[in-house]
């Protein structure tokens, strides 16, 4: 059974079909990448999968169970977590607190009013572990707003890891990250391969072809091709959709 099974998802904003009959699966342990030009509807798709937006029609199943009607927190509880394209953190909290909250969300009730949470070793240890895995262990005590852009991206990842996902939706985790940072990030994601399934939305073609088991190409809200990286790279429709610079980049990758 697929971990994540999306069937005929459709979403329109007025006359504009931003998600047009999208079906896809994410298999256990798989990294399924979604690429597509700007405005293809990638982020809208993630928003529907994560529960932020309601699709007009279609079904989303997680491990066979229909989750189409569930809210974002309910989906997270079932193991479907996401990271944001535009960093979304608690700016006034420390890095550790940001992650500890994600741990707290899945461990015990948060209707506890008296015991100080700051000294909760179980939360802090698990948070530290996620931070270390995301390559941010040495910044735990820093207030999150003081981090650099690259560090923010790693904090996004650490928070997502701390929710203990079964399926992780990564919305352009490399946005704005370049050079060595990007390479390190890709290496990190590769280490998580097999631990949980990932749906990777990404512009960075090097990253996509280095990581993905399967690639789907989204153009104008429609999936025009799905296959192994090699199949997709040689697909004539895909080449046509990626005319110009990105098309060349794709051929080179």
């Amino acid at each position, binding site marked *: 059974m697929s971990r994540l099974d999306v069937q005929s998802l459709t979403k329109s904003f007025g006359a504009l079909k931003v998600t047009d009959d999208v079906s896809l699966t994410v298999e256990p342990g798989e990294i399924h990448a979604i690429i597509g030009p700007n405005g293809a509807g990638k982020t809208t798709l993630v928003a529907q999968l994560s529960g932020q937006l309601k699709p007009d029609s279609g079904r989303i199943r997680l491990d066979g169970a229909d989750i189409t009607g569930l809210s974002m927190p309910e989906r*997270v509880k079932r193991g479907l977590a996401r990271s*944001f394209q535009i960093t979304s953190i608690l700016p006034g909290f420390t890095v550790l607190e940001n992650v500890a909250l*994600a741990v707290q969300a899945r461990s015990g009730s948060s209707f506890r*009013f008296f015991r100080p949470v*700051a000294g909760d070793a179980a939360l802090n240890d698990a948070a530290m572990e996620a931070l270390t895995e995301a390559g941010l262990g040495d910044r735990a005590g820093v207030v999150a707003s003081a981090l650099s852009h690259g560090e923010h991206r790693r904090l996004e990842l650490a928070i997502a890891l701390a929710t203990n996902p079964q399926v992780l939706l990564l919305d352009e985790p490399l946005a704005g990250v370049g050079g060595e940072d990007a390479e390190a990030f890709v290496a990190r994601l590769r280490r998580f391969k097999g631990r949980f399934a990932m749906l990777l939305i990404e512009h960075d073609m090097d990253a996509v072809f280095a990581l993905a088991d399967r690639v789907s190409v989204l153009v104008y809200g429609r999936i025009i091709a799905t296959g192994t990286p090699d199949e997709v790279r040689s697909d004539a429709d895909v080449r046509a959709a990626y005319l110009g610079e990105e098309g060349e980049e794709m051929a080179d990758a």
Partner: protein
Amino acid sequence: MSDVTTAPRAAPRAPAMAMRVKVALILFALFAVLPPVAVALGDPFMVLIATRILAYAIAAMALDLILGFGAMVSFGHAAYLGFGTYAVAILSSYGVNDLLLQMLGAVVVSAAFALVTGAISLRTRGVYFIMITLAFGQMAFFFFISLSAYGGDDGYGLSSRSTIFGSDVLENDMTLYYVTLGFLIALFAACHRIVGSRFGRVLTGIRENRERMEAVGFPPFRYQLTAFVISACITSLAGVLLANQAEFVSPAFMSWHRSGELIVMVVFGGIGTLTGAIGGAVVALLLEEWLGALTHHWPLLFGLILVLMVLFSPRGITGLLERTGLWRARK
């Protein structure tokens, strides 16, 4: 709701928090020595004024719990002050004079009202939340205006203060003062614990970034509503004490002006600090006393001071003190 709270606020860092607790302890110590000083100065009436200030400090602190830490600007919190005062008046007219029973009554009614109106208000955000809490506050206000059995608009004089286990110790102004101070200290400790608890961290997280909290698995509504109810209950306790101080209850305690004054106290002291709300209540009410003695047009002066405060120290007295360095927490 973060779209309505203006000043960017960092979550309280541990050293800053510790410092604020210290300042609160200093305030409590000053409050504790006030009555003997007042007697020595030959001005025992000061104790009664101070009791009123302490009761408002409790209410302001309760409001800060949701306004400062939960980004919920309730413009109807005077309703809970009113429920507290009328719990004293109505229960005592039925022969229930015990302070704790009256407090229980105030808390039960306030929790029920806050649960229902909060659940509706929290469907909205920002300025709509402010307006809808105001509307509910006014509904409570007009209910008591029309409650002619208890004087309606004119209010209702209490024949005596509340008793504690059958004893009328509260008839002594000094005792009432220290009982009120005891409640302030205990409730401050409770609020401080709540803010630093698992629950408090979730509440503050929702203030900081609601979407992020949903994305890690927290549905904001239930946490915000719980905080709203807790805040309402604490405010009603302040009302019970206030009725005893004034020995009189009237709908004036729950008018929207009163709700506004509570917000002013919190802003004045520095939102999201608890200690600041206490200081804000003290300063706002003392200013009202002094400026009121100075001129009939005191609200003008008060307004001017408030404008200057918000312009030059958006974090209120707390921000002012922390900026002087005298009170700055060691890093």
